[in-house]
């Protein structure tokens, strides 16, 4: 019973430790109190910002942009990935291009997208979607290429045509890998969106709040925004893992 309780509390220990160290550091004034406010101040800024301040709106805006760019990326990359993966000769011929742009920092295409889409939400969402789609595409295609050949043969021998093999076997076979791609894709979307909110003519979003707090030297607000961004990333990952567990129940079996 005691062990059980301890085991449950285990993950919390790290959090408590971090806050404790932070708190002691502020008590001992290790750093300038303006740069490192005590944890309760940051927490208060977070709560105030969410309840009555602009942080909740920023939070919502960042989620909206991230999710929208992710949805666009998925809608393009999943069907394309299934098709490319099923025709592996075709994939081999475009693999270099995909790999190249996948390895290109997405932030490097900001200037180009600014020219194409102008200053505004469109550019942010387009760059994030661009980055995420390549990650998703790559994973889906590999998921399809690594599909169990036996299952494909089984479907063919039962009389499935090419389209049916694609939708009934390849799609499902690639799903575990697709989810890995989507998880990585949405993380990347979030990174790009937050960076874009900082520097590309924004009036809201967590990234904007962060950079503004920094410029105004409102350190508690800045810490609060960092936590909000962290919570968002963690939450999205958690949602995906949960959906994955119920949806791809056969994974690894």
């Amino acid at each position: 019973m005691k062990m059980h309780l301890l085991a449950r509390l285990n993950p919390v220990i790290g959090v408590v430790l971090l806050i404790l160290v932070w708190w002691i550091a502020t008590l001992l004034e290790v750093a300038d109190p303006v740069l490192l406010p005590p944890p309760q101040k940051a927490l208060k800024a977070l709560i105030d910002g969410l309840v009555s301040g602009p942080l909740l709106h920023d939070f919502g805006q960042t989620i909206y942009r991230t999710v929208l760019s992710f949805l666009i990326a998925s809608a393009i990359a999943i069907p394309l990935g299934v098709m490319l993966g099923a025709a592996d000769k075709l994939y081999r011929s475009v693999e270099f291009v995909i790999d190249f742009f996948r390895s290109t920092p997405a932030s490097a295409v900001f200037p180009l997208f600014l020219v194409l889409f102008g200053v505004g939400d469109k550019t942010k969402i387009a760059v994030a979607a661009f980055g995420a789609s390549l990650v998703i595409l790559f994973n889906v295609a590999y998921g399809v290429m690594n599909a169990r050949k036996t299952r494909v043969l089984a479907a063919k021998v039962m009389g499935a045509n090419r389209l049916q093999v694609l939708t009934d076997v390849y799609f499902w076979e690639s799903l575990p890998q697709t989810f890995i791609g989507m998880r990585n894709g949405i993380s990347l979307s979030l990174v790009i969106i937050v960076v874009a909110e900082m520097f590309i003519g924004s009036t809201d979003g967590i990234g904007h709040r962060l950079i503004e707090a920094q410029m105004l030297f409102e350190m508690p607000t800045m810490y609060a925004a960092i936590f909000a961004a962290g919570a968002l990333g963690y939450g999205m990952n958690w949602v995906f893992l949960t959906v994955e567990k119920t949806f791809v129940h056969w994974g690894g079996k």
Partner: protein
Amino acid sequence: MLSRARSAMRLVTGGAAEAAPPAQPMEKSYRWFPPGTHITVRGLSKQFQGSVLYENFDLDLPRGKVVSVFGPNGCGKSTIINMIAGLLPMDKGEVLFDGKTIDETRIGYVFQNYREALFPWLRAIDNIHYPLKLMGLSRHERNERVEKLLGRFQVKIDFNRYPYELSGGQQQTVSIMRSLVMEPEVLFLDEPFSALDYEMTLFMRDQMQKVFMETNTTMVIVSHDLEEAVYLADHVLLLTRRPTRIADFIEVPLPRPRSAETLSDPVFVDIKSRCLEIFRREAKL
């Protein structure tokens, strides 16, 4: 009548088959086939990584019989049935089922590796429904067919479970049911029981025998176990080492249903030792 049809069974290989000299002149081999033939293979050639596996290979398989394919390792037992079943392209040659091509023929195929053959994202019952869906049958028709099949297999399986929740034997049973539900004209089985434990293997052999006696479906089974090959079959097709030819085509005239007693029947023992003798000779080649 039947036995005459059997004795008329003739198998010709591209090379000189010592054990089964061709009954007909070779030049005409692709024009003639014995009565009661279901599957005809003519002039099949297949190279594998530069070495010849099959060269101008001819084969006739009888209708409504179980044929076991047995031979030395690497002689291409699975390869030949995969080519006949259309899963593997051949370099040259022709395979006809009653004069029809593979695309015009309903084929059932049971894979050795049931884990990788069933669809883990579908429940067992939906796995069985799947080929019927491909055939475009209505839900009502599908249910009817599946019910009929479930009635025939008296196994205690919770068909609402996912394949990975079932035991190996249950999974292979589901896999066999999936291949039978579309009432195939020919059923191919590639070492279907080799991944199961002995007890389950014995049970499954008898299930297969029951299915065969009820449906009389033409079956081709690859086996690596001589006892099983003889026990299940009406004919044992013995293959040589590569380049693969037919070593012999031995009839197993034992009555069905066969049981554990069959295994000690003098006729069974005799056939088995004959097969073994040929196998030994061919494996050493």
